[in-house]
Each structure stands twice: as C-alpha cells, then as structure tokens.
C-alpha cells in the first residue's frame, strides 16, 4: 500500500491516507474550488523507463506563483521510482497549471501513483484559512522487468564536473598582512624622519665644529708670519666645506661672492700690505664664516 498524500492537514486518526507526515504541504496556491488530477503516461512501463506523471491543478488565481509540489518527498513514492530533477510546468489561460514529473520505476510490479490532495488559500474564506482539494484518484501502472535498467544522470553546470586546483592558503590571513603593511607604512616615514633628524643633527654638529676650527684658525693667523696667506688658506677651506657631500648643499651665491672678494683682498694684502689693513680683512673673514655657520 502506498497510500500517501501531500498534505499536512490534521485529519482523523484513523484516516488511512495519513500514513506519511512531514512533507511540505503548501505551494502558494490561491483560488476557489481548486481541484487536482493525477495521470500517468504511458499506462504500462518497463523498469527504468520514463513515465510522465502529470499533476493538473485547476481553478487557480496565481498559477504562475505556485511552485511544483515536491512529490519526491513522499517516501513511498521516492522508494518506488527515481525522479528526474526538472519538473515541467505549463500554465493554461484558464487558471490551471500542469506539472509534468519524469519518473522511472525502480523495480517490476505495480506502481501505484498515490491519491493526492493539494492545499490552497481562498481569499473569500476567513483570513488565514487554508483549504484542501479532494483526493485525486490513485493510478496503477504495471511495470515489467527490463534487460537493463535506465539510470538517471547527475545534472549540473559543466564546469562543476571539474575540480579547481587547490592552492595552499597562507597561514597568515591576508588582512593581517594588510595590517602589517599599513603599520609598516606608518612606521617607515616616522623612522626615516627620526633618522634624518639624527643625521642632520650630526651633520650640523660637524659643521659647527668645522666653523669653530676655522674661526680659531682665523684668530691664530693674526700672529702668523704671513697672515694674508693664512687667511686665504682658511677661506679656501671654508669654501671647500661646501663641497662636502654630507652637507648636501651648495654655496649660496652671496657667500661665494664674499669669499671671492676676500680672497682677492688677501692676495692684494700679500703683495701690497699697506693697501689693506690685515686686521680688518681677518675680521671680515670671521664675520663671513660666523654668518655662514649661523645660517646653517
């Protein structure tokens, strides 16, 4: 006995149709006086041969919105036949809809298509009340054994039948990498800033020391036998300081002009000492070196 129904409606306890519970019972049908009819074609079959089980539901108002009843969830029917995945739905202008299920009997004998009923909502009825059709007639399909049973294929998009090469994922989440990168990106400029400050201070310190040495030498050169030559030498050292790559700067044009003028004065003082006062020359050179040191 494969008496089944596709309804969850509570019925009398002794109702022989209520052998099976738990399948979905409502497929969104709205209408009045809805009827259901089940037919099977062909009327006889061999094992594995496709039978079209047609379920016709009439007097629907929303035939388009209804989903096909899941007959494959009726355990007894699922045990007796194999369902093809696609259900062909045809909507008629008169508000009826037919669902064609392709089923294949699994074994010989009499295949009984159970009596079925269908739940629907009648808008004219009290709100929320769901009604049921009367049972469709049960159909018997004699099934004979065949030499080779037909089997259903698995269906799906073609690419799903191929595997994707599995690449080992990184042990560290990519978001962790990103966090590290952002933190690094913040740290790098800060680090460089700190380093540059440190180096610049070092450079400034060296520069100051260099200036101090030059000033000391200028003071000393007053007592030298040839102060103008010494002064010229110190000015050349001062100028060479600007060529030091660590300073990363060039001599400003006004300083260069002053250095050139003072060197010319030094030469003049050497060859005609009476023309230029050597002390004033050294004072000028001191001022130039001092101002250059302060400017840096």
């Amino acid at each position, binding site marked *: 006995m494969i008496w089944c129904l596709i309804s969850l409606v509570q019925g009398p306890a002794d109702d022989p149709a209520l052998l099976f519970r738990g399948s979905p019972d409502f497929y969104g049908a709205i209408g009045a006086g809805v009827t259901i009819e089940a037919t099977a074609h062909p009327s006889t079959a061999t094992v594995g041969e496709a039978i079209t089980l047609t379920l016709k539901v009439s007097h629907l108002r929303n035939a388009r919105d209804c989903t096909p009843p899941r007959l494959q969830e009726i355990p007894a029917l699922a045990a007796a036949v194999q369902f093809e995945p696609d259900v062909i739905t045809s909507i008629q202008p008169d508000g009826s809809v037919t669902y064609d299920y392709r089923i294949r009997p699994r074994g010989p004998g009499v295949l009984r298509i159970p009596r079925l009923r269908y739940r629907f909502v009648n808008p004219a009825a009290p709100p929320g009340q769901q009604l049921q059709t009367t049972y469709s007639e049960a159909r018997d399909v004699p099934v004979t054994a065949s030499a080779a049973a037909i089997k259903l294929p698995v269906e799906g998009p073609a690419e799903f039948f191929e595997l994707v090469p599995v*690449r080992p994922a990184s042990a560290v989440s990519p978001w962790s990498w990103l966090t590290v990168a952002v933190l690094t990106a913040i740290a790098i400029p800060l680090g460089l800033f700190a380093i*540059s400050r440190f180096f610049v201070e070092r450079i400034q310190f060296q520069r100051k020391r260099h200036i101090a040495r030059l000033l000391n030498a200028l003071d000393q050169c007053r007592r030298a036998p040839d102060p103008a030559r010494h002064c010229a030498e110190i000015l050349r050292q001062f100028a060479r300081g600007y060529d030091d790559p660590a300073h990363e700067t060039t001599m400003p044009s006004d300083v260069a002009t002053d250095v050139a003028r003072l060197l010319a004065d030094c030469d003049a003082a050497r060859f005609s000492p009476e023309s230029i006062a050597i002390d004033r020359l050294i004072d000028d050179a001191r001022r130039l070196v001092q101002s250059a040191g302060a400017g840096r």
Partner: protein
Amino acid sequence: MMTLILLPLMLSADPAEAFARGVERRNDQDQAWMHFKESSQGFEQQWRDTGSPEAAQNAARAAYLAGNVPRAVLLVRIALREYPWHEGLRRDLESMRTAILYPRPAEPSEQLRPDPPSELRHFVAPVDLLVLAIVAAGATAAGAWGGWLRRTRVWLVPLGLGLLLFGIVSVVAVLIGQQSRQDATLAVVRDVSILRRGNAESYDPRIAVPLPPGTEVRTIGRRGGWCRVQVAGGATGWLPESKLITAESVQR
C-alpha cells in the same frame, strides 16, 4: 569502536578520487551522489585544515552534484565571507542561484534571490590594498625625507600623494570590514518552508509562496526552535530551525 578504527581510513580518503569516481558514474545518479557526497565531506575537511578557498569551492561543487544545493550555497557563502574577492567562488554562487526556483516576488521586500555580489569587498583584494599601502609608504617616506633634507616644496607632492593614498587605503579597509560583518548571521533554507509572521505554525505566512531550498537568509533572532530571518528583499519572518542550515554548523 569500529568508527574509531575506520576514522583514519575515512579521513585519509582522497576527495579528488571520490570526485573522479562520481564523475565516472555521473550517468547513475544514485551511485554518483554517494561519491560526490564523500568527496564534498573530504574537501570540507581539507578546507578546515588548510583554509584554501579552492578546497571550499570544490566542496561546494561536490555538494551541489550530490544534490545538496543548500549546503553547496552555504559553503560558497562562508568561503566568500573569508575570500570575498575570489572570482571563482562568486561565479559558482551565481550558477547555483540559477538552479534555485525562486518564486516571483509580489513586492520588492519579498524578493528571495539575492543580488549578485557587487560590493567593494568583492572587487578589492587585500593584496591590492597592500600594494597601495606600500606605494603610499614609499611616497610618504620619499616626500618626508626629501622635504626635510632639501627644504623645497617639490617634495610636498609625493608627501601629499602618499598621505592621500593612506587615506584611501584606510577608508576602503574600514568599509570592507563593515561589509564583512553583515555576513555574520548567514543561513540557508534546507527544505521548502513557509516564512511565517510568528514563531509557530499557526501564524499566517509572511510571504505567500514557500521559500525554496537554497534560499539565503540572515538570522536575526531565535525563540522556541524558530529563527527570525530576513530574506534578500528585506522582509522578515520566522522559520523553523530544523529547516535551516546555519553558518555555525559548517564553520571552519
């Protein structure tokens, strides 16, 4: 005891081989489903072990071919939560959604089919942001270094560009983080179910047509064996917990 003995053997089974056997027997659904199911379980385990998105993709494909569309959809969605930029996962999700018979919504809020993944996180990979962050770091460093040493305004250009890139990277990262949090309460309808207005069978349907298996929903709350869920269109209602597969049940 037998399970304990067989467990190492079961775990050591190669899911790729099971998949190949399933493909070999694809003309016999019953046989093939068994192998695809075995393969799906194997790839799921591989995914848990390695975290590889491709393993998740294979697990989902095998689950789909084993006839378990809801699990396949859920696997892809969970993997996409971790790897939202993965194009293969996005493509597979769309193929799976095509196979689900979503009913036509009576109103926009009742739409059950989610829109294709098109958020920012689906197009920006962390490696893209990583590259941007490195470029930003380089530009900022060069600008800061050069500007400090040379004392010229030209260096403000790379400094400004670097800081701007930093801003962009930060905003994108925050947006992606916010978008990812929305996926935290993911669930998929396991079986045809009616979305109801309350947490009992006696309540009226919230959406007249039942939700087909594979419908993706977001869980909002739970009470008495029922889950309050939100469908893609925004409508909320209640579904029995037994009709749902939640992300927690297949979490890595």
